């Protein structure tokens, strides 16, 4: 079906968007939410399973303390209230990837509720209100066999791996996000980005959208401009990159407007986002008949975090990422552009550690964003996995500052580090990379060069200091780059003056 899409500016003339974002964060606990199986997805199928997460008759759940702790910390970081008493509840629906045919989740008693997260878009701050954050378990993973596409539609049958079933999830749900107008797509993206940074700073999840450890559902509706009545919403599932969040909001706004302006009504339905072209397509219609028959999980007792525990956990919260960035930028003296590049490269932590290890901020930034970024890109790995540690970068920089290395030699040291040849000192030793710091060999080389190029020597004597460059070049060549060029220059001038 082709959709009638309305130009974004025209949408904004006639409608106000309302968004709701539901983000699932997979926790990085050792074990699953309700059993002692490793919370590791991937690997050989059905290897991380037990009677509980397979839903075998008779098996029972037991709550992972660390997952509760992580949920409370996420709640606190989002400025939420933490429930004094709450229960798990069963969400009943049949689906083959769900072993018990109910998901153990929370219903009207979430562990955290009524919070907010401030995000900044183009200099304007938006307060995103958080309705709730609750604990639940992930489902298994189905792969679809047969048919043409490997997709669920048209498949002959499906194969299910339950390794993922039971991995702890925290679902974070916003209240309707209103009054964002043209910035709606950017606000959505900024919120998910800020949430990702926050959860990452807490250290409770890998928050890798590309790997599914953070997943976003985008609810969107349009109301006629000025009306305070919310329209019918669509729910776009599994929007799995920051860019896609922005695109999905933008697309749905245009699509809804197309329907509404032609006199139609928007279906309350689930939609799928397509990364390839930024469109959405219809999934399952959400009918009122859908009835999850929630009730309190009788196999688990209520969770009642003591206020002392909550305060203990509050004390463990890291500095909020936004505040931390402001502080670091001031400390480091970076320009806005430099800071943004560092953030985009995911290099903030690395630079901070490098600085802590003794390097100057600008030097740390330079190495991480140029040499090491380039190599990480070539290898197709994240910066943090590039194979060099902040301590090593700081050590290399120290050697430069001490005159032992120049930038060119330093790059060769990095070659050695990437090749795993040992510490910078060992690589310098093995590769013979240190600058020649003794003047004796340099003076000898200068004498040789002057003798070989008497005309240049004459020019220098005549006051043309620039001509010394040729002699420096010759000396550098003779010492295979291991001379400190500035020192050579100085020695030449002294020799001829």
């Amino acid at each position, binding site marked *: 079906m082709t959709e009638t899409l309305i130009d974004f500016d025209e949408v904004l003339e006639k409608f106000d968007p309302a968004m709701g974002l539901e983000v699932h964060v997979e926790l990085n606990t050792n074990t699953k939410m309700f059993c002692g199986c490793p919370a590791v997805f991937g690997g050989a199928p059905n290897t991380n399973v037990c*009677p509980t997460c*397979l*839903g*075998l*008759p*008779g*098996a*029972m*759940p*037991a*709550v992972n303390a660390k997952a509760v702790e992580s949920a409370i910390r996420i709640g606190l970081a989002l400025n939420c209230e933490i429930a004094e008493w709450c229960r798990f509840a*069963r969400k*009943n629906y*049949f689906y*083959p990837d769900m*072993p*018990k*045919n*109910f998901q153990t989740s929370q219903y009207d008693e979430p562990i955290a509720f009524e919070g907010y997260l401030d995000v900044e878009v183009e200099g304007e701050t938006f307060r995103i209100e958080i309705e709730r954050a609750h604990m639940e378990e992930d489902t298994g993973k189905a792969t679809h066999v047969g048919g043409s596409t490997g997709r669920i539609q048209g498949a*002959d049958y*499906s194969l*299910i791996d339950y390794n993922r079933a039971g991995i702890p999830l925290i679902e974070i749900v916003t209240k309707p996000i209103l009054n964002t107008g043209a910035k709606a797509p950017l606000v959505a993206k900024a919120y998910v980005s800020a949430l990702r940074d926050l959860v990452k700073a807490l250290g409770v999840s890998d928050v890798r959208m590309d790997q599914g450890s953070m997943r976003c559902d985008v609810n969107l509706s349009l109301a006629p401009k000025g009306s305070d009545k919310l329209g019918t919403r669509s729910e776009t599932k599994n929007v799995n990159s920051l860019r896609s969040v922005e695109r999905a909001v933008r697309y749905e706004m245009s699509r809804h407007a197309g329907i509404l302006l032609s006199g139609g009504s928007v279906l309350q339905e689930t939609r799928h986002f397509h990364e390839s072209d930024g469109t959405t397509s219809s999934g399952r219609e959400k009918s009122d008949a859908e*009835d999850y*028959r*929630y*009730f309190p999980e*009788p*196999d*688990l*007792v209520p969770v009642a975090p003591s206020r002392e525990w909550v305060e203990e956990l509050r004390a463990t919260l890291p500095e909020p990422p936004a505040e931390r960035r402001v502080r670091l930028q001031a400390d480091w003296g970076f320009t806005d552009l430099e800071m943004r590049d560092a953030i985009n490269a995911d290099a903030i932590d690395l630079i901070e550690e490098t600085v802590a290890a003794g390097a100057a901020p600008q030097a740390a930034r330079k190495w991480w964003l140029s040499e090491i970024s380039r190599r990480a890109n070539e290898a197709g790995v994240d910066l943090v996995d590039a194979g060099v540690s902040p301590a090593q970068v700081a050590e290399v920089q120290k050697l430069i500052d001490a005159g032992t290395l120049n930038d060119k030699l330093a790059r060769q040291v990095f070659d050695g580090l990437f090749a795993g040849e040992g510490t910078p000192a060992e690589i310098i030793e093995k590769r013979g990379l240190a600058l020649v710091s003794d003047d004796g060999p340099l003076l000898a080389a200068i004498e040789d060069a002057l003798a070989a190029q008497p005309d240049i020597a004459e020019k220098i004597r005549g006051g043309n200091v620039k001509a010394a460059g040729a002699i420096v070049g010759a000396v550098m060549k003779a010492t295979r780059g291991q001379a400190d060029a500035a020192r050579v220059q100085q020695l030449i001038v002294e020799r001829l003056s």
Partner: protein
Amino acid sequence: MSWIHRTAAEQAAALASGEVTSVELTQAHLDQIAATDGELHAFLHVDAEGALAQARASDERRKAGNPLHELDGVPIAIKDVLTTEGLPTTAGSRILEGWIPPYDGTVTAKIKAAGLPILGKTNMDEFAMGSSTENSAYGPTRNPWDHDRIPGGSGGGSAAAVGAFQAPLAIGSDTGGSIRQPGAMTGTVGVKPTYGSVSRYGVIALANSLDQLGPCTRTVLDSALLHELIGGHDPRDSTSVPNAVTGLADAARAGAARDLNGLRVGIVKELQGDAWNADVVERFDESVALLKEMGADVVEVSLPSFVHAMAAYYLILPAECSSNLAKFDAMRYGRRVTPEGSPSAEEVMKVSRDAGFGDEVKRRIIIGTYALSSGYYDAFYGQAQKIRTLIIEDFKKAFEQVDVLVSPTAPSTAWPIGEKADDPLAMYLQDLATIPANLAGVPGISIPSGLSSADGLPTGIQFLAPVLEDARLYRVGAALESALFEQWGGQITPAAYAPKGAN
């Protein structure tokens, strides 16, 4: 008297003294099963080979002077609701036909760790839904007292096995009376422990907030011994209470001295009246008279919310079970029925569940689905949970006045097979007296109170105690049992299974 007619405590003593071996005991019970179970059908699965192997290992331990437990070597039967690694576990349902669990339930593990040979798995109403064992997908169990009658349910298999001397000990599960009511129907002892005091890990859940495993035996002391073995905290059951209930066998032994001076006994006002058959009440009154003779103070107490217990129960149970039984969808285990054509997973689930579940299971799933559904939750499930609060409060108030409560276990004696099969409500009424204990989590015991003057079948009397005060049940139960045994000249035994001559 042959070995099988002795109590578990006597069998244990004979093992300890070297009078008998576990292999001999186990073989004797297997022989009894072979001779009688064709007719009785108390077992769904008999593991002769496994039981004898465990018996041989037990005898080795005895010989080496290292028995694992007082009951090491005394054979036991397990209700088919509890998982047993390597032994079929069906919960009496067609949908689990042939399922062999890859793990032991906690109570199974405790039984194995104590060295009791497991004779096999006993019959039950499908998923423990019923009061007659007629709802078993594998056919009914018969009452040892009259093969044309039901043995009670849902644990009719365990009660009949114990009553017919096929096993000295059996594990039952009690969600609304499934241990106690079959005890009453078969002239045996059955105990529902305090909720959370025996692990439910491995119990195929009917209603998680009501279910509790417990002992089925022929004497109060035997129940106490088994109860102590299976009880205790289990980290795999999050509703498990922190400390084990203790002193049960001591309480039973002390009770046998028949001194009930100072014990306050409350007759439940709401568990009397027209619903109770005169022959049952007759035996009940005699037992109460015996309690008084032994020094108990007997008063009548009122627990007014009991009148709503059955309705609350038949909402809470279906609600929980409708969700518990969703997992039986023929995707990961169990019997898959595939209709013609190229059916979807959803269609296969529906057809498999229709074929795999019996009528009572379907009725309860549908009622439970209704009670939880949007728009009806508050009026049904929510309301039932409030009734539960009222019943707990009633118990609290009553236990301020008395130490234990007493009532007949069931309104009638065993009825003919088929009589109530298609009348669910008549069947539900059988659990009138037993249900409140499950709603409140309190412990209860049923012991035989005699034989009906009308039909000669056993009648039962039930005691209830406060949460964690299970020991009180053993004290008063053992006292009454002792007094009754003296009147009867020993335990009452169905004629067809009575001991023939001396050992």
